[in-house]
């Protein structure tokens, strides 16, 4: 499988990637802005994400919420998302509606501010506060999203603070912040536009020129605070969080090689050997054999700068205390370091990753998003076609070198969720009930 890829850059700096596929009359438009929560200033946690909400509140020629309505009326799907180091916006539409999707993205890239009002900001601030309550505060383990990066990155590191933001900082966000953030980061030279699917390349280029060409490039962006951190924590740090949960859960994190580096692929394979699907080590040992865990997975954050994180996520079975859970997980990690992995384990992991990757590339929106990602992070969307090869080149020795260097006691962060007292009582009552059968 190889995606055809064409690229060009407008004089204002906008980088454009095109990938044709005419099997269905569908086209995806995807814009990555190279800005995320890492770019937020002190006292404005959550602003990048709040700003993402404001991009659906209209622009000079688009009324509030009309962006959603126009795309859905055209038979399209759409959304946006904010991450530590990027924000993306995307539409998948019937191919005869390509011009509309491009025009809508251009109108908000070039002419957002005339549509911004205090009332819209106040409404979206409350919507985001509700998003925080829903996804973080009122969700079991929901705070892990902010507690783990806070534990893994030093104070003032761009990845340290909360992506969804504190209620206090959300309250403080102003229309001036909106104007400044827009002028600084939402410029064509800080964006990648990808088009994937059923389109005519000559027509697409013409539309991009017409809609995006007149948008002025940015002036300057403040540099990020320093990203570099040592390759290991240098210690074993831990935080215990009593929470409204029924079962203990452990997040065990390791600093790992940045996304896209050679060593990243070995780290990603190590993660899959530990925790991808039922044949993985943690699932086999802790869920199937010893039956101390209800679930066990591992994954990487895929951060391309500073440091990536490899994270093990294991939930206890009822009746298993958090210390036992952590001891058993750590024993598996230590065993991995002591005995190493086999080539068969590497092959299993790579085969799974390959199938998942190919299956995901069926969707035009996924292809466009990957093109934008590789173009934003590395200036090279062709990397999408090298992913399977790079995984296939990983040898057991590469994985073993990674686990030796990065999974030791000097590079571990344990974030342990334990049931608060009232929940703990409910669990022991449930255990007793289960034992009587």
């Amino acid at each position, binding site marked *: 499988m190889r995606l055809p890829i064409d690229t060009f850059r407008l004089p204002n700096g906008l980088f454009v990637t095109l990938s044709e596929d005419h*099997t269905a*009359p*569908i086209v995806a438009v995807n814009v990555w802005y190279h800005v995320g929560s890492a770019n937020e200033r002190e006292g404005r946690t959550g602003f990048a994400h709040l700003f993402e909400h404001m991009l659906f509140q209209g622009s*000079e*020629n688009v009324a*509030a*919420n009309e962006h*959603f*309505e126009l795309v*859905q*009326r*055209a*038979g399209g799907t759409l959304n946006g998302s904010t991450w530590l180091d990027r924000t993306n916006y995307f539409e998948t*539409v*019937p*191919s*005869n*509606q390509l011009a*509309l999707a491009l*025009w809508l993205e251009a*109108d908000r890239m*070039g*002419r957002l*501010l*005339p549509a911004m009002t205090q009332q819209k900001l106040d*409404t979206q601030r409350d*919507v985001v506060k*509700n998003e925080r*309550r*829903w996804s973080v505060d*009122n*969700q*079991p383990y929901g705070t892990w999203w902010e507690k783990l990066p806070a534990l893994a990155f030093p104070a003032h590191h761009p990845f340290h603070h909360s992506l969804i933001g504190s209620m206090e900082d959300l309250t403080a966000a102003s229309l001036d912040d909106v104007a400044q953030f827009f002028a600084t980061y939402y410029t064509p030279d800080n964006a990648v536009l990808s088009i994937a699917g059923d389109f005519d390349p000559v027509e697409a280029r013409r*539309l991009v020129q*017409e809609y995006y060409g007149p948008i002025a490039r940015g002036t300057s962006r403040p540099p990020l605070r320093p990203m570099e951190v040592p390759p290991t924590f240098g210690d074993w740090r831990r935080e215990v969080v009593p929470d409204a949960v*029924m079962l203990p859960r452990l997040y065990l994190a390791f600093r790992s090689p940045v996304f896209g580096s050679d060593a990243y692929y070995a780290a990603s394979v190590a993660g899959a050997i530990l925790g991808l*699907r*039922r*044949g993985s080590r943690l699932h*086999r040992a802790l*869920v*199937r054999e010893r039956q101390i865990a*209800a679930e066990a997975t591992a994954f990487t954050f895929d951060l391309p700068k500073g440091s990536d994180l490899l994270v093990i996520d294991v*939930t206890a*079975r*009822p009746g298993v205390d958090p210390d036992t859970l952590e001891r058993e997980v750590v024993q598996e990690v230590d065993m991995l370091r002591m005995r190493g992995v086999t080539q068969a384990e590497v092959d*299993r992991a790579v*085969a*799974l990753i*390959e*199938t998942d990757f*190919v*299956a995901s*590339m*069926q969707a*035009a929106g996924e292809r466009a998003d990957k093109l934008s990602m590789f173009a934003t992070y590395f200036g090279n969307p062709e990397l999408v076609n090298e992913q399977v090869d790079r995984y296939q080149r990983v040898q057991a020795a590469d994985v073993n070198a990674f686990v030796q260097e990065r999974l030791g006691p000097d590079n571990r962060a344990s974030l342990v969720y334990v049931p608060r007292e*009232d929940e703990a009582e409910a669990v022991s009552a*449930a255990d007793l*009930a*289960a034992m009587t059968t």
Partner: protein
Amino acid sequence: MTGIAAPPRPLPGPSRAYNFPDFERLTLPNGLSIVVAPVPKLPIVTTLALVDAGAAADPRGQEGVALLTARSLAEGTVHNDGAALAERFEGLGTALDASADWDSATVRVTVMTSRLPAAMALLAEVLHEPAFPDREVERIRQERLADLLQQRAEPRGLADDMFDRFTYAPDSRYALPDGGSEATVDALSREAVRAFYQSRYTPSATTLIMVGDITRESARAVASEAFASWSGPAVPPVLVSDQPARSSRAVHLVAKADAPQSELRVGHVGVPRLHPDYFAIVVMNAILGGLFSSRINLNLREANAFTYGAFSSFDWRRGAGPFAVSTAVRSDVTDAALREILVEIERMREAEVSDAEMSLATSYLDGVFPIRFESTSAIASALASLVSYGLPDDYFDRYRANIRSVSAADVLRAARAHVRPEQLQIVAVGDAAAVREPVAQLGLGPVQVYDAEGNPLP
């Protein structure tokens, strides 16, 4: 601000035709049905085995056995133990995904074309020769109990389960979760799993749906090779009661101390999938709460900022699944949010929707149709619904015309017939002590408070 005139808003070009993938049906001599849809875009194939063995077929007192059976299939066969099966599937770069919904059990694998025959042999082994080892079935059962325990602290799942319990009559299978409750899963045994498997998993109750880089001939060859030795009798149809718990409106508050939000579910028993009003209901629901620009979301989220999102849905099943409005709102606006939900539900029945609302819903549902079927797995799921509900083979070919033919009068008629304000069951999972009084003031009906296990509290 940038001082450049914007280019005018573009109009759509001529649309290119789209056809749902052609598919063919075959039947093997042992009664196994096969549906093949060649989609030669990428070198992968999704195989979905659909078995008439969903949760609606759970025997009384064994609620949850359908799901436990499906999840136990790949945990050991007469030839391989569970660990060996996982290793073999995953060595082929795939993982077996086995589950059961209300109407069917589904076992699904997506694999690179070159590995299809080996994956099919394993899939056949799992369906035809499962051993249900004691230890593994017991483990899967304990994992389900752990899920249920987790649910008590998880407001969204808890609200869904409580809504079903308060909406359906106690003797309806739909009153309990499809995976069973703590009490019923506690009572399940390996013998119950074995008996359920023997009564429901037979070739004539199974359809093998194969989608992707495959031809009719190669599908027949690979399926015959893998499944020829499987035999078994026909399976009796399942009849499920979908009677409501009560005929009048009532409010059920489920206490979760100090919750910053109330998880709300407002609805009643809906309609079966094969109802003749299906398309009118789909369009009506899109306008009421199915789209971002629906009445309920624009009201609760964009006008009032009570919530991150609010939607409505009809849960389609062979029997009448629930109709429900779902949202999570800040605790101190629980009463105001419920009032607005009721207003929108009433308004849907009062007058015809506007032309703009009508055209938004129909052009969205019509236009988005091809986008729903970009992957082999999505196409396989669509074909599974066709088989499961017994829809005609030209169902997907006629879908878009059927959507376009719905009128505003049809929508009003559907709202009046299928949305019944006086029968709504109103469930809020949240800070019951704080919301009880303001909600009672709305005068929606009797208010009862429950603990997280559904026991009434004073």
